[in-house]
């Protein structure tokens, strides 16, 4: 029950705006093969259970769970899907190991968003069918509402949001699996065409295809499988109401982030995240989200994120580097695999495998994911090199 859990394998494939050469099942197979090799070439027969994160409409398949087992090497094995973020699938895998029934569990998520012709249209189907959808608005109006309210409540500025874009897209230049690396100026972002004001087109992440797989193991098995385990010290997830008009802290806040982080911090024994965590990969699906999430995650106080950003605190050389990978803004948005993309960077950094963007002297990192518009669901994971 109090078993410790480590990440012992990581594999990824795809990472392109289109990936026409492979079917999604073949793309996942490539990632899975790399993951199992990374865990000392473990045969899939030795894995106890498998969890996938998926959404039917993203894949164009009802019951996407059907097509999960083959490419994971999981035929006639315990397999389940979580319709949620990849970090929630990871949480499910952690729980399974902690029950004692399973010792080695694989968790996977992928995006083949390029196969979908109108993603915006699909997002509108996630809004309430009776009293939101009939307005027939582009669903990103919700992000516009949130951003406006967030700026109003915290005193953060439009320019600070643009600074997030500039930082993350610049960071992405050093990440070979990032697709939206660029050297932009604040004006490039603020003067770009609006999407849903105050949100402009550069404030939103671009789509990305890709597949990510993690292998998790109990402490005993982790020591056998790898000499570089990354320990999952804490994990948490939470959901606010789906009703846009009755969220606990209104549209300006991110209660889901606060609650998910509280759960993860409690489990990891963290009371002062800014001091006890070395770096973070935090959902930046939209520019303002990085700032909003930093405050909700209690990494800084209300209204402080924008100012600290301007002081360089969240840059690669700052006191608390955020989204060194480029985040979603710089790397591309992987949909159900969004949280796993954040987690992947944390694992690569902690293993000192991040190449030119490697941060020095790391021990503990945070990954946080949000499920995107129109949801209020988030998940957080604390990882450490120390057991």
């Amino acid at each position, binding site marked *: 029950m109090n078993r410790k859990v480590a990440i012992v394998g990581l594999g990824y494939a795809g990472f392109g705006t289109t990936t026409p050469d492979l079917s999604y099942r073949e793309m996942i197979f490539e990632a899975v093969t790399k993951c199992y090799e990374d865990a000392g070439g473990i045969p899939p027969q030795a894995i106890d259970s498998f969890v996938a994160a998926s959404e039917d409409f993203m894949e164009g398949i009802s019951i996407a769970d*059907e097509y999960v087992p083959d490419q994971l090497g999981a035929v006639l094995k315990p397999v*389940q899907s979580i319709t949620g973020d990849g970090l929630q699938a990871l949480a499910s895998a952690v729980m*399974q190991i902690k029950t004692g029934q399973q010792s080695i569990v694989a968790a996977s998520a992928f995006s083949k968003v390029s196969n979908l012709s109108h993603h915006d249209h699909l997002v509108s189907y996630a809004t309430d069918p009776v009293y939101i959808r009939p307005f027939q608005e582009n669903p990103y109006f919700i992000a516009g509402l949130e951003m406006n309210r967030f700026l109003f409540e915290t005193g953060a500025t439009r320019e600070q949001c643009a600074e997030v874009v500039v930082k993350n897209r610049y960071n992405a230049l050093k990440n070979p699996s990032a697709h939206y690396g660029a050297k932009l100026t604040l004006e490039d972002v603020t003067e770009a065409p609006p999407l849903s004001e105050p949100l402009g087109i550069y404030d939103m992440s671009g789509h990305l295809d890709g597949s990510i797989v993690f292998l998790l193991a109990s402490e005993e098995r982790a020591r056998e499988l790898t000499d570089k385990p990354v320990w999952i010290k804490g994990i948490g997830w939470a959901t606010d109401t789906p009703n846009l008009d009755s969220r606990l802290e209104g549209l300006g806040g991110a209660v889901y982030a606060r609650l998910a982080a509280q759960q993860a911090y409690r489990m990891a024994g963290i009371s002062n995240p800014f001091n006890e965590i070395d770096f973070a990969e935090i959902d930046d699906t939209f520019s303002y989200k990085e700032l909003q999430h930093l405050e909700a995650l209690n990494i800084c106080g209300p209204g402080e994120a924008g100012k600290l950003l301007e002081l360089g605190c969240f840059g690669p050389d700052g006191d608390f580097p955020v989204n060194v990978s480029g985040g979603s803004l710089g790397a591309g948005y992987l949909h159900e695999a969004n949280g796993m993309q954040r987690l992947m960077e944390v694992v690569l950094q902690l293993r000192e495998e991040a190449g030119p963007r490697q941060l020095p002297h790391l021990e503990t990192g945070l990954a946080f994911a949000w499920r995107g518009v129109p949801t209020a669901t988030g998940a957080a994971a604390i990882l450490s090199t120390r057991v």
Partner: protein
Amino acid sequence: MRKVAIVGAGMTKFVRRALETPKELSYQASKVALDSCGLTLDDVDCIAHGTAPDAFDGLHQNGEYMVDGCGGWNKPTMRVYVGGGTGIHAVVHGWHHVASGLFDTCLVVCEEKMSSALPHAQAFFLTIFDSITERSLEPNLLWIFALEMNRYMERYGYSKEDMALAAVKIKKNGLKHPASQFSEEVTVQDVLDSEMMAYPVSRLDVSPVSDGGAAVLLASERVARRLTDKPVWIEGVGWSLDTAYWATRDLYYPRYTDTAARMAYDMAGITEPDKEIHIAEPYDPFGYKALHHLEGLQLSPRGKTVELLRDGHFDIDGNLPICPSGGLLGVGNPIAAAGTMKVCELFWQLRGEADQRQVPGNPRRGVAQSWGDLMQVSSVVVTGI
């Protein structure tokens, strides 16, 4: 391993078309389950919920939409999804939450509203088939059942009458269930005379399209003992998913049920399931499926199940009563909710609270199983007192 008990259960009435929205059905089932053990939402640490294809509701990220109906507002909430098997798998998933030590209580809620889908919920099953190699043949869900049923009958020389008898017996049990969608008894002849949908499947071989919700409350041992003197323990859980290449499997035997059941029995320390289990709720969307699953659950020898059925072995007063609830055939089949309904039934039966449906002889252990995806997944829960 940390002990986990079911301490409360509740459900809505199963109906062809409900006035309630999916959220309202979830709320109603959850509220009854909470009331049944005297808890409020404040006592619930986390939510494990389930609902089958998003297409029924026409909602992308349906799990997010459902959250407030499930009581998941500002709580850790996760939706697990294994197609038709979701109803019981959500209980397995709830068990993960509590047995992991992360939480002390977990509300498991499953809901299905199929009537919103037009022209018919069936139409949305076209999209469960392989998008490239199968969908262009315009298959419907009945095809795969009919293909499987035909293979099963051919393998053991079973007749349409044999399969109809299973449906008749199970439906009859359902007449006593207060949530049942039905009120009339049917005969084997009625089944045989009912409209031929897809040979060998006739209309009355099939469970109906339904709306409904069901919920159970899980608690750690410490909390369970405080709440009730009759906790129903989750003794074993198992689940297994077979290959998506369904046409390459021999459909006569559900090996996914076999592996899932063995996993659950192993955890429960059961070595002779046919002797150690007193009640079974095998998944029964079709009459033949109950028999097929009994074989996979190791509760009936392969090819001998019809003989046992005829002898009354599976009747309420038989050696191994099956589907005392009335199952999907007799209560209704709101997909995910129907599976959870089976776990509710075990809870009531083992506590001796099943009213007119009560299985005699103080049953002490039961198994519930659900099935789904492309005829390829089973989830199994073993409960005992």
